[in-house]
């Protein structure tokens, strides 16, 4: 028996798999990146960075559990993490931009969150990378969910 044409359902399934896989890739790169900044470059993370880590690190572990065997329910568990992490990243960005005044920020001791530690190409900062990662993961997970309901 030869495989002629994959049934639409299976194709849909493997697209959804790729979407979750993509989300995992981003979560893993972010996790390793955060560990690189902290453990290799010895940049101390600020309080807001820690909250974003709390939501990013588990994504790198939970997403692959939904990949083998593929279980689209992983979206239900991963999406809240991605959205909440994204909110922290957005808050961090607003703080850096000065939209949220200094005295509202939660970190008074240690490394101030309003400090820019890294700036690549003049605009890429750690909170920006974090916000981008959480947004893309959220988008991929929502896309996975929509594929399933079709």
């Amino acid at each position, binding site marked *: 028996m030869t495989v002629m044409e994959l049934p639409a359902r299976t194709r849909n399934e*493997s697209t959804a*798999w790729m979407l979750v*896989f993509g989300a*995992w*890739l981003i979560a*893993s*790169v972010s996790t*390793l990146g955060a*560990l*690189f900044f902290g453990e*290799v*470059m010895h940049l101390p993370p600020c309080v807001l960075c820690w909250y974003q880590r709390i939501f990013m690190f588990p994504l790198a572990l939970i997403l*692959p559990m939904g*990949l*083998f065997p*593929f279980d689209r329910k992983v979206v239900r568990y991963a999406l809240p993490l991605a959205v909440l992490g994204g909110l922290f990243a957005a808050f961090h960005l607003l703080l850096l931009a000065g939209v949220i005044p200094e005295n509202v920020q939660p970190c008074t001791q240690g490394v101030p969150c309003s400090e820019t530690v890294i700036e690549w190409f003049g605009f890429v900062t750690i909170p920006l990378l974090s916000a981008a990662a959480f947004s893309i993961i959220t988008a991929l997970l929502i896309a996975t969910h929509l594929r399933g309901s079709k």
Partner: protein
Amino acid sequence: MKQKTLFIVAAVVLLLAFLGGALAYKGEKRDQSAQLADLNREALVRMHSPTLGKADAPVAIVEFLDPACETCRAFYPRVKEMMAANPDQIRLVLRYAPFHEGSDKLVAVLEAARKQGKFWPVLEALLTAQADWAPNHTAQTDLVWKHLEGLGLDLAKMQADMNSPEIASVIAQDIEDARTLNVTKTPEFFVNGKPLPSFGYEQLKALVDEALLSAQR
């Protein structure tokens, strides 16, 4: 099956990239600190630095030390061991890096003891009793004095000397040199001007052995 392969390949690539990046970063940092030490040789040893061992010993260990630092305390006897194992071959130069809270006062105690010719016994007494006068990593000068009894010191004179501008300038110079050489942790060692490739007793020993060997040639 294909999906599994894709996942495993991606995971391995990510991990290798992380490890490779970490190694490259560390290597670059190491080269940078070696260059820094090379460019700032005069910041390594000052006229005022306390020195142990023969002046013309071929191997010079420069140690940035904080009297309140536990790791410095742990390293001190091992450095002494190395010196004892190679008589007249190693010279130890101490620099101050008072990073702990209150440590600068302790350095002043050491410098005041030095005026009475008792630097090394006082350093050793302080390191031995470290846990007692540096609770919670905070150096407390008040708790120091009772550990200095019996060393034949004029404690009243020491307390007066501690505030001398001369001692303050020694401390300021050492802190400035530490900054120049990018010394951010204690103890930090330089063996014949070379920084440790990475922190650890074995690394220090290897560097000293290498210097001893090249001195014999």
